[in-house]
């Protein structure tokens, strides 16, 4: 039953990560991504997926998907119907799945974040409906596969599993909200395991939308740099297998990290602009710290939302300064969007996986393009790859529409 359910367990169970899969323009999987992040590489290249000849900006962090999908329980017909977003989601899910050692189940809750789902399929539908109005071949399939619940079902089919699917679409905070809600599901006692993450593929509509808003950087994405001039779009997917500590330990699973806190808040200032003082961002970080029972002084690394737009970074910097208080000067901060672009619905989940990498491997991802600190930043921007002792990491995501979300992760030792 979704309701009524058993009373929430007290104390709430600890929630650990036993699998993490990631697909970005830096590579398919943990290893290539970790190596590239550590080296401060970027994954931007000219966009050839659709026509950008009339766009102001012509590059993005495009994923190289020239790879055969591994064998799964999908039929050949199902595989043929996978769009770009579904393939990235599936690749990330398979990596997390294999790492976790999970076996197929009939009740495996899935919580995913996405902003666009199968938008490229929707674009194909639109083009055919307008250009060939009496040609219906393929259109019913596009109607079904455009929808994110179908993409999630295909992922479950590939894993030979089934379960309730929740799709969160809180714009750029979707991936963080998905992980946060999955974490809450386990802590509430609704499930002992949840597969969670986020995904989004580049598509013409969203690219054109950000370009029309003139939020795309015509130079390079430099979050928190005084001369920053916009964001860079990317694409990708990241998936985590979350389970109770008891479940992981009982089967002897390797634990990659622990999620210890989550905070969500609402910025009602404007649909596309954050409150200039970053009030909701501050509140999300505070709530996450309260739930994690940590203070700013306990946080060793902050993965910022850091889009590279003047307004976002200004508001986030103020929020971080306020939240970190006396500790702000020593706090290392970076935005991995400088390397992989803004993954929109996948951003929060990919950045959570980056935090898990930092916690596991004890390094901090740099922003190599960063040159001149914005005076608003009282914290230290990580501009060169460095080894570090990271026990606790915080990841911020803020969305169009005002949903703000923060995760706090801890090293497992």
């Amino acid at each position, binding site marked *: *039953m*979704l*309701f*009524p359910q058993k009373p*929430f367990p007290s104390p709430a169970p600890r929630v650990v990560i036993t699998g993490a899969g990631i697909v970005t323009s830096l590579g398919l999987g943990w290893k290539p991504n970790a190596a590239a992040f550590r080296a401060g590489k970027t994954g931007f290249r000219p966009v050839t997926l659709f026509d950008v000849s*009339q*766009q*102001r900006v012509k590059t993005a962090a495009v994923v190289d998907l020239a790879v055969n999908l591994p064998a799964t329980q999908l039929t050949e017909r199902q595989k043929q119907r996978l769009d770009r977003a579904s393939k990235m989601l599936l690749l990330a899910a398979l990596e997390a799945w294999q790492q976790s050692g999970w076996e197929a189940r009939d009740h495996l809750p899935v919580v995913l974040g996405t*902003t666009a*789902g199968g938008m490229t399929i929707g*674009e194909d*539908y*639109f*083009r055919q*409906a*307008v250009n060939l*109005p*009496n040609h*219906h071949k393929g*259109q*019913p399939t596009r*109607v079904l596969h455009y*929808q*994110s*619940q*179908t993409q999630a*079902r295909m992922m*479950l*089919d590939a894993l030979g599993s*089934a379960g*309730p*699917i*929740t*799709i*969160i*679409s*809180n*714009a750029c905070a979707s991936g963080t*909200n998905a992980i946060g*809600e999955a974490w*809450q599901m386990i802590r*509430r006692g609704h499930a002992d395991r949840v597969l969670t993450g986020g995904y989004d593929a580049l598509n*013409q*509509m969203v690219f*054109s*939308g950000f*370009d*029309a*808003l003139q939020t795309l950087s015509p130079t390079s994405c430099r979050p928190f740099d005084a001369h920053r001039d916009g964001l860079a779009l990317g694409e990708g997917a990241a998936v985590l297998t979350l389970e109770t500590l008891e479940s992981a330990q009982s089967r002897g699973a390797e634990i990659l990290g622990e999620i210890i806190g989550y905070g*969500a*808040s*609402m910025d*009602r200032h*404007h*649909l*596309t602009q954050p409150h200039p003082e970053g009030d909701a961002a501050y509140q999300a970080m505070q709530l996450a710290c309260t739930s994690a029972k940590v203070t700013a002084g306990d946080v060793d690394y902050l993965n910022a939302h850091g889009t590279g737009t003047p307004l976002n970074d200004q508001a986030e910097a103020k929020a971080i300064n306020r939240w970190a208080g006396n500790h702000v000067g020593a706090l290392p901060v970076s935005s991995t969007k400088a390397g992989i672009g803004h993954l929109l619905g996948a951003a929060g989940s990919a950045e959570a996986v980056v935090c898990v990498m930092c916690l596991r491997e004890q390094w901090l991802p740099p922003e190599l393009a960063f040159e001149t600190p914005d005076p608003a930043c009282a914290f230290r921007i990580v501009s060169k790859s460095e080894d570090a002792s990271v026990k606790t990491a915080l990841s911020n995501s803020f969305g*169009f*529409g*005002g*949903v703000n979300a923060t995760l706090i992760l801890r090293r497992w030792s």
Partner: protein
Amino acid sequence: MSRIFVCGLGSVSPAGWDVKSLRDALGKNAPLPVQPLMRPGWQKPLKMRPVPNPPVRPPFLSHPNMRRTSPITQYAAAAALEAVKKVRQGGGVHPRIGIIVCLQSGCVQFTSRFFEETLKSPATASPLLFPETVFAAPASHVAALLENTPLVCTLTGDPSAYSQGLALGIDWLQEGRVDACVVIGAEELNWLLADALWHFDHRAVISGGAGALCLGLNPEWSLGVDLELITDAHTYTTRTNRKLAAKKMRAKMPAQSRAEILCDGLNDSPRADAAESSAWAEWNGSRISPKLILGEGLMASAAWQCVAACDLIASGKFNAANVSLVGANQQAVGIRFNNGGRDISDLSLPTMAGSLAV
């Protein structure tokens, strides 16, 4: 677990801009008139039941955030404001209200317009349209109107996902993160969406609008309706088809008893209705099928089903109502509301609810 009270209802539908118009339309038992919807490139129009213009301009439209919003946001806002009326009546500080907006197609009007502009000339595609294409836009605007809204979330899925919105709202309430939670199902129509539906049912009549339930723990806010249960989400898989999932859902709902009504999602579409009809084949009690009257409103339809069910209980006509949400391509979920144990002395059931039985 605490009791979950239904504290308010809201509706915008082809019947009008409030719950009363929905109630009246369903009570009359007659499908609302169908209008033609021109489909570019076709001589023959598609069919729709649009939301009529409001009799007077709703005051909330003068809020600065509501400028340039698409119809779906306006429907969601109107339904939400109607649903939270009771919980905001006390004056003084407004209670903390969580907002959950559930969508299937979402902001299709501005999305279609913006993409059309992009294909013509991306350099001149309107930056004013794009932000309103985002799934999260309606929730953002509703939050701006309601003000004290600490938690906001947008869920997408087929119409059965409305049940997950209710379940999430219950979690927020039980954790004390909000005092009340308004769960909105909303959609807007355009020719592209009608075209998509046409591929599955040539007789389909598309509609738009929104429905909203406000949930709370405070009995003083209750309309006299409890949310009794939400079944598991029975997801469609390669092993569990839609028909089997619907049957599993039905098996988790209580057996039929007196003074109950079934509020289903049947739509006079034999192929689409088959799974749900089969699951409820044994039901011989009162039944109401809002889509037959209002058209296919996707997530809005799921919300209308819940609103109609609660309204019938609140008005004292039924002890309990079962809502059947057999989604198109995700899952089947059942929801049950009751009157919290109030005695209904007059069990002569209204004929309107039964005469639409399929």
